[in-house]
């Protein structure tokens, strides 16, 4: 597909002169794909609104406003409390839907813009005809593009029309958040679902582009094990630190190092998703960790130069780096920090200015130039020795200034007892600060609240010196998509329920009780032979969790997409491979057409594919759109109490029987369904709640009795272990006698009897009437 424009000032033809001719052909489709197209290629929000309404009537959005006000236009501020409306007529419920839509638009825009930047640069370098070749084990290369856009991309240039379609949808949906547009919360939510579906399209485009162009693993389960942790960075060497999500600048650093034969002399370290993608690019790259390590690592003064690209980069990186005389190179138009654009200056001049601290940093829009400048500056500054690290003695003296005003406490969402730690540190005892290391999310809000400007983050670092030195483990490099052959192997056991579920750990590190909970949860499901997969910051934090022998989860469990295995699919944009895997189950295993066929595939996944996402530390707008995109596809997500600040959940009510009605696709009859999956977006109030909920949300109406037995075994067992009793809703998930796990028959029978349980038929479930056979 391509866009063609013909322009002529004047043409002489047999019919006469034609002046000012301009012809533009939006798309030329060269059709080599014989799959029948479904009803919704390139869907508009209205094309899938009925599907959304089905979901939203079952999982009614529930809002917990963060604020009573609307501050979006000059009519306001408008107070929406107590049933009041704003000057534009909007009420509190619709306003919440509007904020959700805005968040999802921002999230999708971040991925879409990231995808466009990658695609344009890679096309410029390799040409639009560069093939998308993911190897012979991946034939369904772009499940989300096929499903949503209705095209089958073969070369990089084929991704442009899909991207343009998504950009158009995004613009349209964002416009609905303007004052005086949508007024219904349900329709705001439908639009949020739509733009979040687009987000999964954007993510897939971004990751496909980089996978096609860069030497990443191509779905191999045995992707290399990479060093991860603050302790794995050799601070005696020059260190280039890359922060953000766009791999291209960091990749050029690696290329420059290789070209100069300096790979062993300079450390290239990454934070956040750039780190994951650098580790896909080269196993010599090291991963410091997720974004929660950003401020702490900068404060350590280990980095000689910092490269920032885009997304989840602290707004004060330049300010923080300059305190340590560390220059910053900004590389994209998303983050410029008011730095001068030095892209056209001679490299020697830029290097000289940064090394001699004549400039705090530079904006360089040429990745190759960034690669050379970053390495040369890091080498020179490392020779000179720079930075003003605070010693423990100095920090101890600073701690004596604490007046115990408690402002830090009122800024710390982790409830860390900083005043007491400060008192002890003033006496030279940093042990309480050390204990904060694993709980602190590294936001630094405590410091900005402190009237004495105490460097509390440095104090935690100082207390945890030894811990940081030993913070070394292994993360499997992001493998990318699940291979088609793996889907063939696990498709039947997933759909029939014999693999108890797919648990995906996704999202950011804003954890209420420390990142260890994520590792603990993953291990529980791995040992129970669920398929466990991970992406982004969660994939990094899972690596940090180690057993008594110091072995990490990636070393203990294979990287396949199979029961009892842990696969890291990659960075944020690789989340599309998790949704893509669910879509591929419908396509490869069940033979359903993907092309422009969203509703049917989502209906299939909702009723048959027991997959659940756990976004335990989700904080960003991207996490909002990622989760909401999963939700539209019928995949529930579980978040922690922190994420109640997203303001909205999608809960089902097991006692509202009418909301669970569905069609039996065999007979066309409307039947009572089960409350499965019970919720679509659930806030677990504790780790234990999340574990039990994840097992329960894997239950699907289509499970065979054998599969249901397996799922119930896990649900009951985990409930007993973590909640201390049999689940009270067990009777809702037993359809027939054969669903009851053999080893639990007696205790389950007792409950069934108490609840007056009766056997139910097992339908061939669908929410979509047109999917009834014969219609």
């Amino acid at each position: 597909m391509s866009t063609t424009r013909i322009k002529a000032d004047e043409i002489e033809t047999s019919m006469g002169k034609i002046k000012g001719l301009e012809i533009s052909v939006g798309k030329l489709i060269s059709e080599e794909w014989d799959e029948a197209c479904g009803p919704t290629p390139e869907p508009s929000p209205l094309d899938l609104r009925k599907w959304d309404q089905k979901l939203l009537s079952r999982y009614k959005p529930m809002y917990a406003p963060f604020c009573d006000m609307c501050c979006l236009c000059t009519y306001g501020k408008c107070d929406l409390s107590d049933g009041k409306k704003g000057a534009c007529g909007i009420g509190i419920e619709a306003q919440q839907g509007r904020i959700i839509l805005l968040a999802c638009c921002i999230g999708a825009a971040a991925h879409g813009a990231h995808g466009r930047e990658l695609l344009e640069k890679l096309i410029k370098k390799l040409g639009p005809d560069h093939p998308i070749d993911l190897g012979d084990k991946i034939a369904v290369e772009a499940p989300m593009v096929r499903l949503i856009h209705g095209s089958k991309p073969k070369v990089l240039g084929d991704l442009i029309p899909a991207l343009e379609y998504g950009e158009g949808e995004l613009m349209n949906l964002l416009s609905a958040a303007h004052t005086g547009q949508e007024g219904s919360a349900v329709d705001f939510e439908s639009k949020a679902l739509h733009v979040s579906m687009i987000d999964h399209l954007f993510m897939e485009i971004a990751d496909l582009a980089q996978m096609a162009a860069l030497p990443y693993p191509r779905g191999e389960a045995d992707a290399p094990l990479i060093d991860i942790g603050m302790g794995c960075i050799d601070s005696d060497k020059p260190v280039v630190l890359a922060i953000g999500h766009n791999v291209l600048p960091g990749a050029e650093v690696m290329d420059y190092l290789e070209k100069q034969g300096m790979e062993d002399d300079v450390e290239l370290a990454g934070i956040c998703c750039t780190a994951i993608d650098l580790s896909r690019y080269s196993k010599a790259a090291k991963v410091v960790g997720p974004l929660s390590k950003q401020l702490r690592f900068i404060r350590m003064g280990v980095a000689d130069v910092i490269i920032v690209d885009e997304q989840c980069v602290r707004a004060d990186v330049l300010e923080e780096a300059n305190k340590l005389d560390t220059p910053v190179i900004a590389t994209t138009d998303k983050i410029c920090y008011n730095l001068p654009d030095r892209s056209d200056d001679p490299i020697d001049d830029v290097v000289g200015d940064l090394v001699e601290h004549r400039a705090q940093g530079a904006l360089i829009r040429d990745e190759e130039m960034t690669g050379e400048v970053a390495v040369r500056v890091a080498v020179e500054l490392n020779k000179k020795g720079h930075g003003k690290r605070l010693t423990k003695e100095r920090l101890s003296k600073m701690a004596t200034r604490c007046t115990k005003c408690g402002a830090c406490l009122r800024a710390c969402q982790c409830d860390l007892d900083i005043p007491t730690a400060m008192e002890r540190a003033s006496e030279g005892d940093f042990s309480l600060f050390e204990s904060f290391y694993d709980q602190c999310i590294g936001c630094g809000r405590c410091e900005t609240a402190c009237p004495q400007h105490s460097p509390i983050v440095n104090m935690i670092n100082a207390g945890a010196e030894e811990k940081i030195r030993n913070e070394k483990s292994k993360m499997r490099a992001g493998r990318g998509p699940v291979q088609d052959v793996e889907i063939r192997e696990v498709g039947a056991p997933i759909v029939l329920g014999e693999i108890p579920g797919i648990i995906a750990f996704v999202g950011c590190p804003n954890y209420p009780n420390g990142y260890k909970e994520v590792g603990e949860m993953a291990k529980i499901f791995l040992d129970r032979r669920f398929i466990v997969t991970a992406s982004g910051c969660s994939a990094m934090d899972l690596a940090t969790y180690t057993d008594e022998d110091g072995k990490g989860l990636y070393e203990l469990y294979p990287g396949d997409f199979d029961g009892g295995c842990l696969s890291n699919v990659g960075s944020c944009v690789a989340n599309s491979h998790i949704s893509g895997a669910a879509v591929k189950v419908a396509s490869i295993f069940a033979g359903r057409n993907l092309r422009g066929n969203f509703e049917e595939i989502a209906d299939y996944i909702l009723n048959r594919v027991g997959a659940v996402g756990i976004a335990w530390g989700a904080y960003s707008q991207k996490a909002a759109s990622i989760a909401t995109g999963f939700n539209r596809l019928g995949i529930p997500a579980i978040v922690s109490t922190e994420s109640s600040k997203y303001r909205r959940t999608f809960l089902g009510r097991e006692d509202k029987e009418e909301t669970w009605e569905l069609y039996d696709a065999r007979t066309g009859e409307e039947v009572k369904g089960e409350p499965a999956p019970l919720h679509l977006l659930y806030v677990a109030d504790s780790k234990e709640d999340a574990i039990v909920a994840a097992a329960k949300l894997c239950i699907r109406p289509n499970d065979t009795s054998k599969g249901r037995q397996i799922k119930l075994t896990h649900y009951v067992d985990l409930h007993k272990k973590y909640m201390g009793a049999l689940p009270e809703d067990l009777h809702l998930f037993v359809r027939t006698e054969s669903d009851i796990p053999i080893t639990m028959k007696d205790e389950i029978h007792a409950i069934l009897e108490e609840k007056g349980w009766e056997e139910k038929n097992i339908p061939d479930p669908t929410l979509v009437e047109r999917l009834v056979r014969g219609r």
Partner: protein
Amino acid sequence: MAETTAWYFGNEPGHLKALVGDAVQMDRVIGRSSRIMLVAGPKVADEGWAPAISVVRSVPHTTLVMSPKTRSVAAGEDIHPDAYMNVLEVMDRVRDPYWKGFDGGGRYDLIIFVGMDYYFASQMFSLIKHFGYGAKSMSLEPRYQPNASYSFGNLNQKLWEEEIEKLSKLLGGDD
């Protein structure tokens, strides 16, 4: 009752804020409520809430619902809740105008929270404030919760323990 500032400075929702009360005023509010629901969150396990829960529970027409994680704490303290349920699932019922309560006796006019992280409780209070069909809410934690209808102010540990003890006595009919 007066006003104060949210414990987290950034948590100011708008002008409609909780009235700040002490034990005596909380006792009065509880006393004039006809159907009370006490929601005990997952942190009651860590924070020694059991005695206060028992006392509030003993107030007539009070339903106790606890986070499922607290089952062993409840058993250990001989507390018998009316239901174990995730806090969000409880709120999903509170925002349902047709919900008849755990005992079928009708909606609750006062919902009290204990044992929850500050920010999570704040969100739940906001939910009740906007979508609770007139139900009032109360925080018994030592940190001011502006989204509730009634809250203690920002108290230090000692003062707060004294207030809880006083409230327990008042509710128990000791004064």
